[in-house]
């Protein structure tokens, strides 16, 4: 089936099988491998992207469902060489160790801050319910998002 998708501001059109997941499309067809596959069963959030303004797990979306949609992946967060404030905060505040979960964490953090620009610690922790990190113990991820919020509000 023919689909047309805008990813990080660029228009793409491909003929794909309806059973192809969006994450597979992003990684294998568009070579945007920043979006990770952790569990492939909707649990871990590593595959989180933004579709038409909301965070979603791209392993649980079919690429055909995204036909006509506008998608932002982790590759689309920085402007040229300038990191997005959330990325900058993760770098500054040690919000990552191995980095596997980080693209999903950043994309979810953006959704948290869109709906709640000044979240408290509990609100951030609840907001990350769908994102697993095996390394950091979450503490510095929460701290990074708090700092990103401050920066984005200033």
């Amino acid at each position: 089936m023919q689909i047309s998708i805008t990813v990080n501001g660029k228009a793409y059109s491909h003929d794909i099988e309806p059973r192809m997941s969006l994450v597979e499309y992003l990684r294998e067809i568009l070579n945007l491998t920043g979006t990770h596959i952790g569990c492939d069963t909707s649990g871990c959030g590593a595959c989180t992207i933004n579709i038409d303004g909301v965070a979603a797990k791209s392993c649980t979306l079919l690429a055909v469902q995204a036909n006509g949609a506008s998608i932002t992946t982790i590759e689309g967060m920085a402007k040229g060489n300038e990191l997005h404030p959330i990325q900058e905060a993760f770098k500054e505040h040690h919000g990552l160790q191995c980095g596997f979960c980080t693209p999903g964490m950043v994309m979810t953090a953006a959704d948290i801050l869109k709906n709640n620009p000044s979240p408290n610690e509990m609100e951030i922790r609840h907001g990350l319910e769908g994102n697993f990190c095996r390394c950091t113990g979450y503490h510095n991820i929460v701290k990074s998002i708090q700092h990103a919020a401050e920066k984005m509000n200033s």
Partner: protein
Amino acid sequence: MIPSKFDYIKVSSLNEAIELLDKHGYDAKILSGGHSLIPTMKLRLNSPELLIDISSVPELNSITLEGDEIVIGANCTHHAILSSEIVNAHINLLAQTAKCIGDIQVRNRGTIGGSLAHADPSADYPATVLACDATIVVQGKQGERSIVASEFFQGIFTTAIENDEIITSVRFPKVANGNYQKFYQSASRFAVVGVAVVKEENKVKVGITGVSDTPYRATAVENAYDGTATAASHAVDGIDVMSDHFADVNYRSHLAKVYVKKALEA
């Protein structure tokens, strides 16, 4: 994990979807948010030959106040429900319930119509739909009909919807005083026990999910209610309580009583 092959059609009207369902029978499935259906297809527990995507059918997306009723379109996401002004003003219980579902990403995609049609025994909305005496409106080849919540859930993953029928909306009465309490399954965040209580002058209405293979109205609690939370001890009277690797019968029964008590006291 890759599902087996299927065709995909995105419809723009309800009639188109009903025609396709009627033509393809059990080989076709409605796709809404996909957050129950796609995982089961990836596990090949479900292998439909045709997916009929209804996410672009315009009339299924609204939340409106019609007289004394709050009407929620089947395609409304959990996020749309929990953030709706109408819902928060007139039936806060429903917003509380939607807030407890999964995580941000799931709430951005999953819909109330999909959740009710799927009828997972651990889903959250069923408890609230039952406690509120909501009505599920469906449309099929034979036209439209309304199904009262008490007749909608018929067993594990089984509802009163016919194969050619689509849920179009859910109609709730206004609820001034309601509370939802949930004991989370810590990994999936589904309800091990979920309790919705609607408080009216001298009585309560109690819906329970997660405890039995079918969500139920805890009539024993409702009948024993004396204005205090002691009636919570009747939470599983006459109920065939589920047992699984998260909670055995004794533990689940205990949780049901504790969570009914919490909801009555809230």
